[in-house]
C-alpha cells in the first residue's frame, strides 16, 4: 500500500532540511584552497587526534557498554527500565551540561578529581579527558543497540550451550556475542560517529589545545571564529569530517549486508 499523497510535501521538506545545509556548505567552498587547508599541519593534527580519540572512546564504550547492555537485557523488567533510562541520559542531555558534570566529577576540586589531584593525577584538559567526554556522550548509542539485540536473542541458545557443557564464559564468547554481531557493529559505528562529532562536552571538560585536545569539531569552531586559519579552512575541515562520517556509515552498510541472516 502506498502512502497518502499529501505526505509527500512534508517528506520532501524533511529531506531538504537534512541535505540543503550540506549543499550550501559545498557551494560556499573555495575549491582552490581545499588542498592547502586539509593538508595543513593544524588540520592533520586535528584529524589524527579525532580519529585516535574516537577510536579509544569506542573501545571504552565496547568494553564497558557490552557488559552493561547484557546486564540490562537480563534484568527484570522494572530494573531494566530504570537502567535504560539512566543510560540514555547523555543522549538527551545537552553535551555542554555533560562537560560541566564531568568537570564537577573529575575536575581538580571535583568529587573524585580532588582525591586524584592529591596523588598527582589531573584529568581535565588532557587527551584522556577528550576520550572520557566522547565516551560519555557516545555510550548510549552502543548500549541501546546491543541491549535490544541481547533481549531479542533471549536465553534459549545460552541454555542449549549449557546442556552441551559450555561454561558461561565460553557461552558468552561463542554464542551470546556472535548472535548480536550485526547490532554490535551498528552500535560501534554509531558510537564512533558520535565520538567523532563530539564538541560541547569536550570543549568544557578538555579544552581546546592544539595537538592535545583540539579535535576536528574544535578545530572547525576555532577556524570559523577566525582564530588563526580562515573560514574557508573551517568549511574544508567540515567537509572532511562529513566525508569521514559518510565513509564510516558506508562501511557499516557493507558489513551489515554481509552478515544479514
Amino acid at each position, binding site marked *: 500500500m502506498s502512502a497518502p499523497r499529501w505526505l509527500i510535501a512534508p517528506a520532501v521538506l524533511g529531506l531538504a532540511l537534512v541535505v540543503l545545509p550540506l549543499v550550501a556548505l559545498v557551494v560556499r567552498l573555495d575549491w582552490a584552497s581545499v588542498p592547502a587547508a586539509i593538508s595543513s599541519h593544524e588540520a592533520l593534527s586535528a584529524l589524527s587526534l579525532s580519529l585516535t580519540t574516537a577510536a579509544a572512546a569506542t573501545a571504552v564504550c565496547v568494553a564497558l557498554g557490552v557488559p552493561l547492555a547484557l546486564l540490562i537485557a537480563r534484568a527484570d523488567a522494572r530494573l531494566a527500565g530504570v537502567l535504560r533510562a539512566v543510560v540514555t541520559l547523555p543522549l538527551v542531555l545537552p553535551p555542554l551540561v555533560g562537560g560541566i558534570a564531568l568537570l564537577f566529577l573529575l575536575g581538580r576540586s571535583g568529587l573524585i578529581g580532588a582525591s586524584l589531584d592529591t596523588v598527582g593525577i589531573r584529568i581535565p584538559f588532557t587527551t584522556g579527558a577528550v576520550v572520557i567526554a566522547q565516551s560519555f556522550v557516545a555510550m548510549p548509542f552502543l548500549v541501546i543497540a546491543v541491549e535490544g539485540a541481547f533481549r531479542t536473542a533471549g536465553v*534459549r541458545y545460552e541454555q542449549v*550451550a549449557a546442556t552441551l557443557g559450555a561454561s558461561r564464559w565460553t557461552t558468552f564468547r561463542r554464542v551470546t556475542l556472535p548472535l548480536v554481531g550485526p547490532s554490535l557493529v551498528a552500535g560501534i559505528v554509531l558510537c564512533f560517529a558520535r565520538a567523532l562529532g563530539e564538541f560541547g562536552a569536550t570543549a568544557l571538560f578538555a579544552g581546546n589545545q592544539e595537538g592535545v585536545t583540539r579535535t576536528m569539531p574544535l578545530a572547525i569552531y576555532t577556524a570559523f571564529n577566525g582564530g588563526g586559519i580562515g573560514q574557508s579552512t573551517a568549511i574544508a575541515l567540515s567537509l572532511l569530517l562529513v566525508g569521514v562520517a559518510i565513509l564510516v556509515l558506508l562501511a557499516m552498510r557493507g558489513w551489515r549486508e554481509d552478515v544479514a541472516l
Partner: protein
Amino acid sequence: MSELTARVRAHRGGFELNVSLHAPAARTLAVLGPNGAGKSTLLDVVVGRLQPDRGDVRVGGRVLSDAAARIHLPPERRRVGLLSQAPSLFPHLSAQENVAFGPRAAGASRASALQQAQRLLDAVGLRGLEDRRPARLSGGQQQRVALARALAARPDVLLLDEPFAALDVSTAADMRMLTAETLERTGTTAVIVTHDVVDALSLGHACLVLDAGRVIDGGGLESVLGMPRSPFVAALAGMNLLQGVSQGNGVVHASDGRVLHGHQIGTLSAGPHVFAAFAPAAVGIEPRGDSEPTSAEAGRTSLAAVVEGWELGTAGIRVRFAGGVLADVAPAEFAGLHLRRGDRVRLGVNATDVSIYAAQRPVGDADPSPARARSTGTRPLR
C-alpha cells in the same frame, strides 16, 4: 555405566512435583503424561534449571543435586544433554560447527572436534550438508543436527523433550527410528518425555506416567498400556476404561451402577476396586436401546448408552457415547444403524474382550527397572 535416579520434590509457582524415577544405564525411560502433568518441571530439575526442594538427582555415582547436602550443579557441569522440540541450532554456525560445539567446549582441538562432528553428521545421514547454516536446512534435517550435536557432547544422560512433536508425520517417523537406533548403538541412557504413545513404543524400554506432578503408574510398556489405570493412559492405549468394584467371577459393578462381565487378570488381592478395560473395536452396537437388557446373557456385557457423536477413526467409524465409552464400527455397519445424536442404544461386549484387573498396580510391578530394589519404584518422597 550411567544410570539416572531422581527422587525429588520441587515446586514452581503453585505447582508441586513429587517424583521418583529411575532410568537404567543404556536404556530409555519414557515419561508419559497429559499437559500440565509436570513433565517440563521434571526435565528442568534433571537438567539443572530448577533446584529441588528435597531429594536428590544422581547419574551413575555422581550427585547432580542433593537438597540435604545443598549440592546443585549448574547445567553445564551435569553432563546431561537435552534434545527439545525446537532444534535451537546456533544460527551463526554451520551444521558441522554446531555439532562440534560440545567437543570444543570440552577442550577438544578445533580439528578433532570438527572430525568428530563429521562422523556424527554422517551417522545421522547428513553427509554433504555439513557447511550449511541452519536456516538452509529443513526442519527434519535441523532436528538431525540437533541430535548429533547433543550426542557429540557425550552426555551421561540424554533427555528428549517431545523431540518429534514439531515435525511432519513422515519426517517424525524417520527421525523416531533414527533416534531409537542411535541411542541403541551409542548405549545412551535416555529419558523421553512425550504424550505420543508411538514415541514411547519406539524408544522406551519402560515408562512412567505422570499426572498433576505425581507418578500415577509405571512399569513395562506392555503392562502399563495393556492394563491402563488412568483415563490418560486408556486414551493412549486406545481402550475404554471403567472403574468399579469386583463381585468375583469376573463380574464388576461399575461406579455408575452398570454391570460388566470380563476375565480377571492376576489375583485381585489388592482390594475389591478394579478397572475394566476393553477395546472400542470389541464393542457392538445394538439399536432399540429402550428395551431392558435381555436376561443377563452369561459372558456378555450389555450397557445402555446415549450417542454423542462420531468421526472417522483409524478402524472405521469411531462412535462416542455419553460417559466416554467409544466403539469402532465398519462404515457399512454404521450406515445400517441409522444413528442420530442423542439416540439410546445398547452396547454389547464379550467377556473375553473385557480385562478386569486390580486398581492398584502390584508393588514392584511399577518399577521400570527389574534390576533395581523393588520397593523404590514410584513411591512419592515424604
